[in-house]
């Protein structure tokens, strides 16, 4: 095998972080997207802007805030210590929490668009048939927006795989725990081990291309032929 054992460890860790993050974001992001799609509240604008923040903020800002907030003097750190979880930086779950923030808009926005595209009529029709709000959500809205959900899932997963700056700032570069593939590549480049860097970088490139290829060829959100 031309990838080293630590490379495989880093790839496996990256896939685990991305999978767990995507699953959590399905659970957390979908209700937020639903609310944003259906609400007429004046908070829609501000909340939508907050959701989009990670798109604009440099990872260094996000990483810095997370490091301070999850530290022993930060609000999140004090909460997790009181709950007996300990401090999150330098742990697998710390990375997951950071990734959830980092990838939040990549889940919420496509799902919100899908929900908005359904429009009111199918839901009103379901309501006249006495479907409860929860029933309407699970039996009508979710199936109709399945392509959007799948797009969101793929985007979230891929974006988390590509995460680098935030992980670098809160990870502590621990093999098997926080040293993801992007950090591993960075280490190789810094250490002048360009051959190793090339191999792992090529794997990332091919992987990213394949993910996007699936998305574009299959095109679940696009026009029906």
């Amino acid at each position: 095998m031309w990838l080293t054992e630590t490379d495989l460890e880093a790839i496996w860790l990256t896939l685990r972080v991305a999978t767990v993050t995507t699953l959590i974001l399905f659970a957390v992001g979908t209700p937020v997207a639903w609310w944003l799609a259906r609400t007429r509240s004046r908070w829609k604008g501000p909340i939508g802007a907050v959701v989009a923040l990670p798109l604009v903020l440099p990872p260094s800002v996000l990483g810095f805030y997370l490091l301070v907030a999850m530290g022993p003097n930060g609000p999140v750190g004090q909460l997790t210590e009181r709950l007996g979880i300990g401090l999150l930086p330098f742990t697998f779950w710390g990375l997951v929490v950071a990734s959830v923030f980092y990838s939040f808009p990549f889940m919420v926005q496509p799902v919100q668009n899908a929900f908005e595209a359904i429009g009111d009529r199918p839901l009103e029709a379901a309501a006249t048939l006495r479907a409860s709000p929860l029933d309407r959500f699970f039996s009508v809205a979710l199936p109709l927006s399945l392509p959007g959900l799948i797009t969101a899932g793929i985007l979230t997963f891929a974006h988390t795989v590509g995460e680098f700056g935030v992980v670098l700032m809160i990870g502590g570069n621990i093999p098997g725990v926080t040293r993801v593939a992007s950090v591993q590549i960075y280490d190789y480049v810094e250490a002048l081990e360009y051959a190793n860097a090339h191999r792992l970088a090529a794997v990332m490139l091919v992987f990213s291309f394949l993910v996007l290829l699936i998305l574009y060829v299959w095109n679940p959100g696009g026009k029906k032929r």
Partner: protein
Amino acid sequence: MQPIRPVLAAFCLMGVGSAAAEKAQIAVAANFTAPMKAIIASFEQDTDHTVKISYGSTGKLYAQIKNGAPFEALLAADQKRPELLEGEGVGVPSSRFTYAIGTLVLWSADTEKVEDGPALLESGDFNKLSIANPKLAPYGEAAVETLEALGQKAAIEPKLVRGENIAQTYQFVDTGNADIGFVALSQVMKDGEISKGSGWIVPSDMHAPISQDAVILNRGKDNLAVTELFAYLQGEKAEAIIHAFGYETE
């Protein structure tokens, strides 16, 4: 358009007025940021030259230089990269010298945490020990050598977190996410003493010296600002600044 002309004229005059003044663009290892700023301020006052500095990790700066970055000199955090550049014909032969020798300190943001360094490391009474990545940073290498000298390497391994460079290593400790860490004395020293938290200065016989070398690059070969800066770095004024920031010199 009218108001712009006087400004343009002023610029032209400035160019003519300081014929001897040159501009240098140099790359400096991140750990030397603070002393370098002080040295450049002093240098620019004493000469007509201006110096633009880019800070970064030595590995990144090296890769950038190899790929055509417009730097005229490199002040690295180690000896390896300047040696390589010299060997590869990118650095000017015989311009290389050791401008500073770093001092390692076991440090905590808590003012009472570090009293007896070796005893603390042996007791294991800390959540994490932050070190710079030994593969990338000379301070990390020195930290590992110190742990080995103390016979604590294996015991502490599970508690290690690694900063990408010495600045991040310090960040982990300063924010309290790691109780203690091996950082550069220059990061916690002000006016000749450790200015916050608590620290144990690692005796220099516990690790190989952290020698930081500088080298002039081919682009800067004929730039007076660069050669004069290199002479200045070896002079008394610069030496005093370097010492005040917790570095030794040869």
